[in-house]
């Protein structure tokens, strides 16, 4: 298997090899991987890649899946234009 050709995060085009490289550099949590490589920050918001990232972390560091921390989630779950938020606030006044 060529880990360069295994796409973990389709939104931000992050391959399995990218994850391995980051693991070697010392980035070991989902939160760190997300900040450094944007994995899980695209339109799917980790709904597709999240479980695979958890799994790969568990496998690479030989940890039980249960102990792999998930990343923080904040509003919004998808892109919302600032204009729309402003208009909603104006309407509510």
């Amino acid at each position, binding site marked *: *298997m*060529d880990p360069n*050709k*295994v*796409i*973990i995060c*389709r939104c931000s085009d992050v391959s*399995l090899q990218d994850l391995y490289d980051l693991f070697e550099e010392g980035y070991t949590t989902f939160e760190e991987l997300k900040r450094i490589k944007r994995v899980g920050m695209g339109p799917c*918001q980790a*709904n*597709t*890649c*999240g*479980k*695979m990232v*958890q799994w*790969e972390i568990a496998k690479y560091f030989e940890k039980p*899946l*249960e102990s*792999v921390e*998930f990343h*923080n*989630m*904040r*509003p*919004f*779950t*998808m892109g*919302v*234009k600032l204009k*729309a*938020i402003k*208009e*909603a606030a104006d309407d*509510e006044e």
Partner: protein
Amino acid sequence: MKTTECLIVGAGPAGMRAAKRLLDAGAEVTLIDRSDMLGGQLTKQTHMFFGSEKQHASKRGIDIMQLMIDDIVNHPKLTVIKNATVVAMYKDRVVGYVIGETYHRIQANAIVVAAGASEKAIPFENNDLPGVYAAGAVQTLMNVYGVKPGHKVLMVGSGNIGLIVTYQLLQAGVEVVKLIEAADSIGGYLVHASKIKRLGVDIETNMSVKRAIGKDEVEAAEIWRLDEAWQGIEGTEEIIECDVICMAVGLAPLTELLQQMGAKIMYVRELGGNVPVIDKDHRTSIERVYACGDMAGIEEASSAMMAGEIAGLSAAVDLGYHVENYEDDVARLRHELSNLRDGPHGEKIRLGLKKLGVLS
């Protein structure tokens, strides 16, 4: 800001049954859904359901959906918001949603979250080639939009979704070349498996996809045998000609909205991954916020309906409504749920619910 007494996020089987219970109790309900159709995943369930009479066994999913819609849709205290994606939930029960390009907010006294699940994927070489699908997407394409996903399918995963979608592909005149399963036995009901075997589909266990082959789209799949540690065994590779690799490898609860709110979440493998911590009445760790259906643990539509009823009843009681026969109804629903989860097929869910502390 708009307000509502009880907001229900997701109009699938769990959300619609919760709505019914709340409306019956006298509450004012807003039901919000991303789609332009009510019904959630039932909108594409063209097959007949198993289970008990009360949960509409031997009716088709889409017909059950219609019954549930008819049950609530003309109720004067119900507001339905369709084509609306909930994108934010805050601790004070303010909920943000998007319709097209507009953003809206609504505050609720109680919220039942029945947001469903997302499909899992497995990593393999060239998994980004067009032609690599998840099974739910294939089902939506065929059963909702009448579009065939391709001509020759390799199905990956033998749970009920993999088995049923295989059958529906055959019904649509699509060839299913093979069905492979990574575990050592078939995951779904044997009656579904036997049906597709009779129709000539080869089912092989202990096998997985090594890579997709193709230039611009899937032209073939290379599969291989797995050892006991689920690692591929070199030398066992086999090339399967196909233009679709369909992954039916499980679902994961969509807990993101509850996570945003700061609800307690726990990883329970048997329930599909991260799930909200709930009590047996479906209350989450946040006051007057409830979780039910697949997002509280992957099960099936029948259990989602009953869980939705329990969540709806809890919300009604917490909002101060007197619910006639509350104790009896909840006891009956719990009893029916435990019947459904009985036997070897319910073992996983029972274990998961024990870890969650819902079952003793």
